[in-house]
């Protein structure tokens, strides 16, 4: 076993709604080349929480069940993807709770099909309703400290700002905002959307995020299982670096070798 594989996992590393998890990486289940690759990639990622959507049963087709495939191993986090209004999202969350027996929900309400940016107004409305109905709301949000703070004040179990548009792989477009959000909120901050490669995930953790949620970066990589492993290591590296306390950034050099005992001095 190489040295890097033997790195210890710091556990527990993530606490949401009173529950602790050994992984700060949450993974999505969409867009994999096939089901087996999805299962292998999720296993390689070390994720303990995976997201699912809620969709109509295909009444004319085969009745394969994602629940059968995943529920024994992973905590399933249903999302409200596809919803454009608070009303639809609240109904979808309720259906998800019925179907899965969980009060956890990833609240996703999208305003604009091109950017898939959250609709902040509907999001705040739906979050308040769902918190009132006893849901643990993990709110997918834009990277705006004001909206994120409002979501936390409403009582969301986690706030999940995007790094960049869903599936774009652009990484963290506004690291200053992400750092501000992490600094201001006591609720866990999970970077959700836009991660493209392992350094993006590490960066999110170094900025202070409690965790990351990613899907496309793994599912659409040339080697999803390889990328899932890299992401697992990236998240652990970023978290470790943050906990270790980095050196400050300086405008000028500071020699690392001592200045005493120089030959010729």
């Amino acid at each position, binding site marked *: 076993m190489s040295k890097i594989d033997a790195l210890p996992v710091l556990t527990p590393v993530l606490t949401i709604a009173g529950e602790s998890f050994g992984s700060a990486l949450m993974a999505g289940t969409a*867009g994999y080349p096939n089901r087996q690759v999805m299962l292998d990639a999720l296993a390689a990622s070390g994720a303990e929480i995976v997201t*699912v*959507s*809620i969709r109509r*049963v295909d009444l004319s087709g085969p009745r394969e069940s994602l629940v059968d495939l995943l529920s024994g191993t992973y905590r399933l986090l249903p*999302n409200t993807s596809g919803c454009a209004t608070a009303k639809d999202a609240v109904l979808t969350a309720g259906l998800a709770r*019925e*179907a899965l027996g969980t009060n956890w929900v990833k609240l996703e309400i999208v305003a604009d099909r091109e950017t898939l940016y959250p609709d902040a107004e509907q999001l705040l409305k739906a979050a308040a309703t769902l918190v009132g109905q006893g849901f643990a709301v993990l709110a997918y949000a834009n990277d705006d400290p004001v909206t994120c703070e409002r979501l936390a004040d409403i009582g969301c179990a986690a706030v999940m700002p995007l790094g960049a548009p869903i599936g774009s792989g652009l990484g963290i477009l506004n690291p200053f905002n992400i750092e501000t959000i992490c600094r201001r909120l006591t609720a866990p901050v999970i970077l959700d959307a836009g991660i493209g490669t392992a350094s993006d995930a590490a960066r999110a953790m170094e900025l202070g995020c409690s965790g990351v949620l990613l*899907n496309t970066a793994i599912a659409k990589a040339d080697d999803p299982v390889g990328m899932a492993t890299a992401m697992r290591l990236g998240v652990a590296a970023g978290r470790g670096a943050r906990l270790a306390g980095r050196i400050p950034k300086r405008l000028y050099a500071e020699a690392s070798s001592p200045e005493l005992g120089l030959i010729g001095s």
Partner: protein
Amino acid sequence: MDISLNGAPHRFDGASLIELLAAQAIDQGKPGVAVAINDEIVPRAEWATAALKPGDTVEIVRPHSGG
């Protein structure tokens, strides 16, 4: 009666939700399915007693892949 089922018009010979679920081969003992009638969620405990009337909109949903 004529109802809407998962977004499509559907002619149905029964009168109750439980008959509809059976006709659609929904395994009522298995978790992972949820039902709404006219945008109101019908909890599993009430499936046995929920009635349907003409024009009702029924949604039968389950978890699917998603990010």
